[in-house]
């Protein structure tokens, strides 16, 4: 149960941080339609995060609310992988971050639908439909940018070069995840990694992009060892709750 709580919190943090990053684009997107699309994905992830936080609060059973969990934990207590906290950068960076995450997220949710934990399976069932849309969107953009102009290709390649090293953490289980896998609550990550890799390879091929090889993989976010970016994100995200403790909004 402690493991499950920690894992659900990790899912919640992950969805929230990525939603937050996407929401930073709001009003500044390159095309009005894409502004809408990013807000949509952000809203989906925010909704998913809330479901997880609510469930985590319930599992913990200490009376904390979704907002307590999101707003009153410090950077080293956050459990999202490094990938999702990386800054937006240009649109190519945002797209690559999203696509790498979507490939993992979608296949994870597919599996989680069969989790013996019915609550978790229920959230996955709802979210997987949204994730299918997300991956469609980000894959299309990978293809457009890779097989677009010289500049878009250069930018998407630079984004891959800078973000690929965070993709390995997604399918590298932490002790918590290993315990849940052993107990049958979580699927084996090797299969998910393979599915994600296949999808990446297929989309990159259509985008005429090369899949990087032999990159040193960074990890740490899922055990609280984040990049310095997360702290700044949290100063904004948490400011109001920190400045006005205990108030209702």
């Amino acid at each position, binding site marked *: 149960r402690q493991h499950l709580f920690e894992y659900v919190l990790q899912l919640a943090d992950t969805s*929230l941080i990525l939603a*937050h990053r996407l*929401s*930073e684009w*709001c*009003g*500044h*997107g*390159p*095309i*009005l*339609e*894409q*502004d*809408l699309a990013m*807000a*949509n994905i*952000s*809203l989906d992830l*925010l*909704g998913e*995060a*809330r479901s997880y*936080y609510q469930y985590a609060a319930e599992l913990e059973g200490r009376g904390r609310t*979704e*907002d307590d969990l*999101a*707003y009153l934990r410090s950077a080293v207590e956050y459990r999202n992988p490094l990938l999702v906290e990386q800054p937006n950068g*240009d*649109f190519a960076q945002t797209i690559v971050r999203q696509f790498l995450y979507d490939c993992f997220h979608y296949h994870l949710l597919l599996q989680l639908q069969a989790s013996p934990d019915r609550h978790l399976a229920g959230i996955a069932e709802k979210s997987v439909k949204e994730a299918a849309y997300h991956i469609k969107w980000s894959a299309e953009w990978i*293809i*457009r*940018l890779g*097989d*677009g*102009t010289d*500049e*878009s290709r250069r*930018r998407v390649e630079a984004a891959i070069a800078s973000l690929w090293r965070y993709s390995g953490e997604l399918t590298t289980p932490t002790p918590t995840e290993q315990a849940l896998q052993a107990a049958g609550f979580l699927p084996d990550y090797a299969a998910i990694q393979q599915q994600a890799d296949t999808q990446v390879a297929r989309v990159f091929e259509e985008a005429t992009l090369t899949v990087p090889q032999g990159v040193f993989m960074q990890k740490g976010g899922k055990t609280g060892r984040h990049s310095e970016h997360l702290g700044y994100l949290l100063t*904004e*995200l948490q*400011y*109001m*709750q920190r400045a*006005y403790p205990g*108030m*209702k*909004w």
Partner: protein
Amino acid sequence: METLELTQEEQFQARIDEDIRIEPKDWMPEAYRKTLIRQISQHAHSELVGMLPEGNWITRAPSLKRKSILLAKVQDEAGHGLYLYSAAETLGASRDQMLADLHSGKAKYSSIFNYPTLSWADMGTIGWLVDGAAILNQVPLCRTSYGPYARAMVRVCKEESFHQRQGFEIMQTLCEGAPEQKAMAQEALNRWWWPTLMMFGPKDADSPNTEQSMKWRIKRFTNDELRQKFVDMMVPQAEFLGLTVPDDKLQWNEAKQGYDFGDVDWAEFWDVVKGNGPCSRERLQARTDAWEQGAWVREAALAHAAKRKQRAEAA
């Protein structure tokens, strides 16, 4: 016999007078078309620029629920922008040209968005007051003479009144909350009240286009009529919230069954219209930055579409 035939222009006006909608393929006077393009694109630009002041608090919203509602609201504004650009396109304007006019400063947008959002209470105040004023301006446009515009406005107004309720609810939560929260709400009202009154435009005496626009039924009330309506509607709501409207001269006038109220600072109004609002420069900069930094993305999308088309044709 000939003298009995109506000119095109007279026929057009007759349709309007009978409240028959003008559609894109119908004949219309050039001045009508131009006025509409200006008005609709200005409205579309306002939705676009209007995303910025509220967007400014998305990353700092005080709860997950509020964050979600606010993001959805700003997203709706982007959607309104899309409907309205499409409506203007039916009149022969191109979206790129309209945006170019926005970026060059040639086209205007609502001055209210040139004021900064400085506290969370501004999210409540904008929803409650600014969207409230927008609705008063816009509801009559659901019956405006030009079909695509009227239909876009029906969708816009429906969502706007939802936003307005959400804004009021934010204010209510603040006013029922801790003293700091109520003070935050009052401070926001103090900053936004007068700029909101300016949203209805100059006094009727200084609004020379009103008459023609009313004749064409692209405007149905004068600026001063709407301003009065707004004050009469908002003062009781402020009272309900326990907030004080920052106007010494505000007083119920039994005879006119409405409020008397102080005069807007018209010098400030014209300064902001001229581009000297507190955030005028930042707003335009944010939009042009987004546009310029997005140029390579738009080019890539076009280039890729062209490649696909070429391949499809070759196959």
